[in-house]
């Protein structure tokens, strides 16, 4: 339930993404994170086993002079995890119900909407608003909107419908803003009736919520997770390829500062970049540098300094800026689509931050390469880098 954070001068609301399995809940949350420039994390996978929820934290907008902090979660859709789904829904201030518009998925929507209605009936306080995000509208056989409205009428539900194609990010942000408005309506009513609390939210991050769920469940749902079943999350599916690539990038910049990590990679990477890419500078936009504040300071310092770039035999770009900063960009860390690059940057940054905390003297940046693409750069202090670069026999000076 919403609370007024006494320290942050914010109102904290929770938006839950509900729906049948495979309707597009996680895809929607990931697309939303991309649109808002915020990362999504999934605290599932304790030993690669369980699935709990996806988590996105975003602060934006204003409610009566307070910033609006949105805790966005998606609930597990599997029937075996229904108690967990129920607990997560009970804490929400608004629901985005992701409906599957395909004929097969539409059938499941009915039972899940029914279940949702029953859960929300038991929630105390003002009503919890629902937005139906009719997903997969790009399917040729998508169920007409009239039939969806008939379904809602039949269930006695009066809720707004927003069409979406979550895989392309279409309609996702509107559904979210719509849900925020509904949540704020509820908050207004909570304030009016004196039911809102001024306190820290019960869960301040994904880890808090995970611990809360584990404590409440007491392992009761462990049996529902079979070794053959929930071995990984949908989020992991969406992020697997870039995450693997980026973990290597992050290991280089945030780990041991060892250029040899690059040189040990697959040597079959094509060296096909004829011209020198543009180096990152202070013009890199918000959301494309991590950590955001310290990284921005590094970029500011780096800007205007002479940058000398060269390429090694594997096609990785390396260089030193102003004698103070080392820049490395692996050969394949280049993206035609800026959003694809940003997704890699954001998701990996968050997961790394969760593991190792704050790093103030280095950063990772996604910057235009001057040839219409975007390249990920690792920037770290040059003193250790100079040594490594000098030692690397395959570092080709220009």
């Amino acid at each position, binding site marked *: 339930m919403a609370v007024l954070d006494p320290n942050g001068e914010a109102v904290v609301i929770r938006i839950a993404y509900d729906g049948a399995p495979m309707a597009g809940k996680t895809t929607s949350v990931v697309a939303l994170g991309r*649109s808002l420039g915020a990362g999504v994390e999934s605290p599932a996978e304790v030993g690669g086993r369980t699935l709990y929820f996806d988590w996105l934290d975003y*602060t*934006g*907008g*204003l*409610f009566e*002079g307070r*910033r*609006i902090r949105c805790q966005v979660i998606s609930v597990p859709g599997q029937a075996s995890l229904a108690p967990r789904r129920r607990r997560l829904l009970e804490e929400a201030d608004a629901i985005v119900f992701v409906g599957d518009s395909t004929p097969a998925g539409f059938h499941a929507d009915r039972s899940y909407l029914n279940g949702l209605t029953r859960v929300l009936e038991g929630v105390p306080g003002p009503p919890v608003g629902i937005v139906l995000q009719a997903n997969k509208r790009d399917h040729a056989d998508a169920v007409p909107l009239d039939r969806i409205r008939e379904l809602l009428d039949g269930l006695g539900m009066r809720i707004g419908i*927003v069409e979406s194609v979550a895989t392309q*990010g*279409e*309609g*996702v*942000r*509107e559904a*979210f*803003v*719509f849900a*925020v*408005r509904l949540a*704020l309506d509820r908050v207004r009513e909570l304030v009016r009736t004196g039911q809102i609390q001024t306190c820290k939210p019960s869960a301040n991050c994904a880890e808090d919520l995970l611990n809360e769920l584990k404590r409440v469940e007491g392992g009761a749902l462990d049996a529902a997770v079979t070794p053959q079943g929930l071995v990984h999350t949908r989020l992991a599916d969406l992020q697997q390829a870039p995450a693997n690539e980026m973990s290597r990038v992050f290991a280089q910049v945030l780990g041991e500062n060892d250029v040899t990590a690059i040189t040990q990679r697959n040597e079959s990477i094509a060296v096909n970049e004829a011209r020198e890419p543009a180096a990152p500078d*202070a*013009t*890199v*936009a*918000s959301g494309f540098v991590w950590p955001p504040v310290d990284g*921005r300071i590094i970029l500011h310092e780096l800007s205007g300094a002479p940058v000398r770039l060269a390429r090694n035999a594997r096609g990785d770009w390396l260089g030193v800026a102003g004698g103070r900063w080392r820049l490395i960009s692996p050969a394949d860390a280049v993206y035609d689509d800026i959003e694809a690059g940003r997704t890699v940057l954001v998701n990996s940054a968050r997961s790394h931050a969760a593991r190792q905390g704050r790093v103030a003297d280095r950063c990772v940046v996604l910057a235009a390469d001057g040839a219409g693409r975007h390249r990920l750069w690792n920037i770290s202090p040059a003193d250790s880098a100079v040594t490594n670069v000098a030692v690397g026999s395959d570092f080709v000076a220009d």
Partner: protein
Amino acid sequence: MANEKALLDVIAKIEGDVNGVVATAVVDLDSGMTLAAKSNRSDFDLAVASAYNSELVKQKMKIMKALNLKDGLEDMLLTLSSQFHLIKFLPGGSSFLYIAAEKAGTNLAILRNAVAKHLAVIA
């Protein structure tokens, strides 16, 4: 509420007609959340600007109500020493376009004309 993609298209068209655009957003009036946003300057926090401008609009509406003005609010213009900030309502009145542009790059007539022309597309 309009689709984010359609709104970003409108923003791109406006920027095509106006030089010196610092940032543009379409903002939900009720929550101050951005429905679409594009900033050309890394030091310009568009989410914060949008949120506080939504409060500005709400305050102006309260003033109009207090004055018992029955008129509609079409747009709001704030002139800074080096920038224009223009707020223009979208059809329906539940959201508005907020644009900040360098005075050195454009003038008020061009800015208003471009915004009106391209917002008409989503009318």
